[in-house]
């Protein structure tokens, strides 16, 4: 089997008859992917949206789709920082009901009971009822085209109007050197609430290429927290489309720690008056890791608010990328948009690339953006050390302080504490 775009297209040709859902949509995605290729790959065309992130290494990696799992999913799962809440577990891109913990056995046969009962949501499988939604543009996003072409499974999570589903965990575990393309759909009915906690982890040299489509109806609120802690040799690409209706909130926080290359791309559309989107993130990178957080916020209705605080802590020869675009449509008056990207460089060899873009077609708006790059403050380090705090601990305190503004935006205390543990764990690994 070939590597790169050709390899993925060959696979598509061999499995297309077995794939669920709209075959015409898949064929269109395959055409788009054939034309565009992998960004940075030898046959790929240069794409502005991928200016700072090249997938050449991915294009040169051989993925063995039919390889037997080399690692135990159960062991990896047991080592994850799980919350005491329902969980939907995917292993190598396929739903594993036996590892999932749910309340509604009729929805997911074989899943265990949850310790915190919840009947406020339902889950279906993409494999059973392929739902490609309406929010994606595979012709503009090659990795979304690739996902649309090859997606086999995913979760279709629905919270009916007026229900509060509490916390639900969506977990991806990779156990073999293959490529996975999960396709998730999250729908919140009017005034519904959900805290979706995603964890991505695994072992091996794999590709996880997720697409999620999120619909937040009037007055609904989705908290979306993600911990990306993939294997050191893994590629992680995740594209999220969120559509937020009037008075609804999409409040997200992404913590990128793992993978050799990670691209988190979020498209948030504020399409009803008074909608809000918070796209906060922290990237903690070491060695030669590459982490890219790219966002597009479209204000298409009046009186909407968007907030983005993205913090990068970069050690070794790591490279962080932040691209943030705020689009304000003609009728989106009283838009309030804010974007801040900050980088803390812990090494002279680390690098950050920042590209903010504002595209404003309304005349009564408030939009601002800013970016800072710095090192640890020598005065602050000396102050802490002069109080007896060892150097490594002093650094950890200042890095944690740097992340505070982004982490404090996570209002759920359980989830914030959980994220802080992940940050502390990252730091301990770095110091070791």
């Amino acid at each position, binding site marked *: 089997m070939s590597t790169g775009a050709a390899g993925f297209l060959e696979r598509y040709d061999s499995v297309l008859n077995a794939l669920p859902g709209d075959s015409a949509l898949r064929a269109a995605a395959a055409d788009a992917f054939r034309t565009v290729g992998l960004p940075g790959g030898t046959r790929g065309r240069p794409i502005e949206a991928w200016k700072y992130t090249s997938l050449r290494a991915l294009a040169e990696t051989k993925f063995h789709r039919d390889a037997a799992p080399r690692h135990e999913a159960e062991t990896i799962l047991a080592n994850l920082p799980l919350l005491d809440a329902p969980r939907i577990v995917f292993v190598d891109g396929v739903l594993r009901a036996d590892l999932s913990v749910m309340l509604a056995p009729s929805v997911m046969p074989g899943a265990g009971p949850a310790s915190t009962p919840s009947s406020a949501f339902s889950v279906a499988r993409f494999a059973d009822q392929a739902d490609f939604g309406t929010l994606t543009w595979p012709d503009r996003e090659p990795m979304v085209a690739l996902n649309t072409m090859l997606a086999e499974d995913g979760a279709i999570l629905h919270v009916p109007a007026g229900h509060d589903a509490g916390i639900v965990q969506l977990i991806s575990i990779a156990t073999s050197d293959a490529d996975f393309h999960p396709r998730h759909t999250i729908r919140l009915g009017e005034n519904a609430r959900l805290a979706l906690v995603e964890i991505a982890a695994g072992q091996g040299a794999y590709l996880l290429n997720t697409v999620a489509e999120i619909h937040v109806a009037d007055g609904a609120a989705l908290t979306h927290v993600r911990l990306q802690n993939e294997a050191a040799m893994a590629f992680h690409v995740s594209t999220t489309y969120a559509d937020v209706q009037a008075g609804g909130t999409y409040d997200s926080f992404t913590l990128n720690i793992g993978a050799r290359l990670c691209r988190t791309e979020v498209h948030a559309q504020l399409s009803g008056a008074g909608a809000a989107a918070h796209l906060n993130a922290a990237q903690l990178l070491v060695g030669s890791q590459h982490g890219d957080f790219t966002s597009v916020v479209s204000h298409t209705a009046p009186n909407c608010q968007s907030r983005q605080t993205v913090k990068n802590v970069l050690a070794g020869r790591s490279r962080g990328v932040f691209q943030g675009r705020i689009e304000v449509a003609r009728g989106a008056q009283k838009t309030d948009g804010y974007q801040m990207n900050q980088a803390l460089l812990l090494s002279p060899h680390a690098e950050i690339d920042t590209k903010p873009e504002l595209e404003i077609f309304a005349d009564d708006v408030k939009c601002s953006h800013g970016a800072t790059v710095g090192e640890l403050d*020598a005065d*602050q380090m*000396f*102050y802490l*050390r*002069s109080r007896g705090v060892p*150097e490594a601990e002093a650094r950890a*305190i200042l890095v944690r*302080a740097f992340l505070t*503004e982004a982490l404090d935006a996570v209002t759920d205390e359980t989830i914030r504490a959980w994220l802080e543990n992940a940050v502390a764990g990252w730091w301990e690994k770095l110091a070791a």
Partner: protein
Amino acid sequence: MLEIRGLAAAINEKPILKGIDLTVPDGEVHAIMGPNGSGKSTLGYVLSGREDYAVTAGSATFNGIDLLDMEPEARAAAGLFLAFQAPIELPGVNNANFLRTALNAIRRSRGESELDAVQFLKLARAEAKRLAMPDDMLKRNVNVGFSGGEKKRNEVLQMALLRPKLAILDETDSGLDIDALKIVADGVNALRGPEFSALVITHHQRLLDHLVPNRVHVLLNGQIVRSGGPELAKELEKRGYGDLIAEAA
């Protein structure tokens, strides 16, 4: 306690200290006075291990151990404390967490057990009360949004909690009103004893009324040009440094 011999130091290759000799015996409080730019703060920084100062000659020993070879945190663990002239702000760092981290780091190095949050807060609240600090100063970020006087009191609070053997107070009195000055002096006096010494850097006689020194030294252009008893401070207050500067020239 502290023995300084021929100490010379430079920053960016510019000599600041030019051969300091100073001995602070156990249990004594010594004052360092002198005009701006004479090297007073530099002496405090060099003794506590700030990295941007290069020691070019001389020695400093603390209870017989070579101070200049040690990392700043090791000096703190050995019992040295510097109250900063301009305390550093730490946005995003809670003051109580900062104080507990520092105290537990020092306690670990002394082989003592660490204090948990409850034990620590009890202790910190008691000390804060003695310094007439409002409780909410423990909840705020370190020195962020503190007034000048609050910052200085926060330094004295750290000293009270860490219980150093040698405290260097770098103009801890500047920016304080009379009441605050007395509280700070009382904070230092409370620690006085045969195993505590202090080096008090100040511009004013005022602090020394409340914190009576055993010796007063005048630092001028990187050297100690005169030493004497507490009466020297009174004399300087009256006559200024003019005569000494003329003598040195």
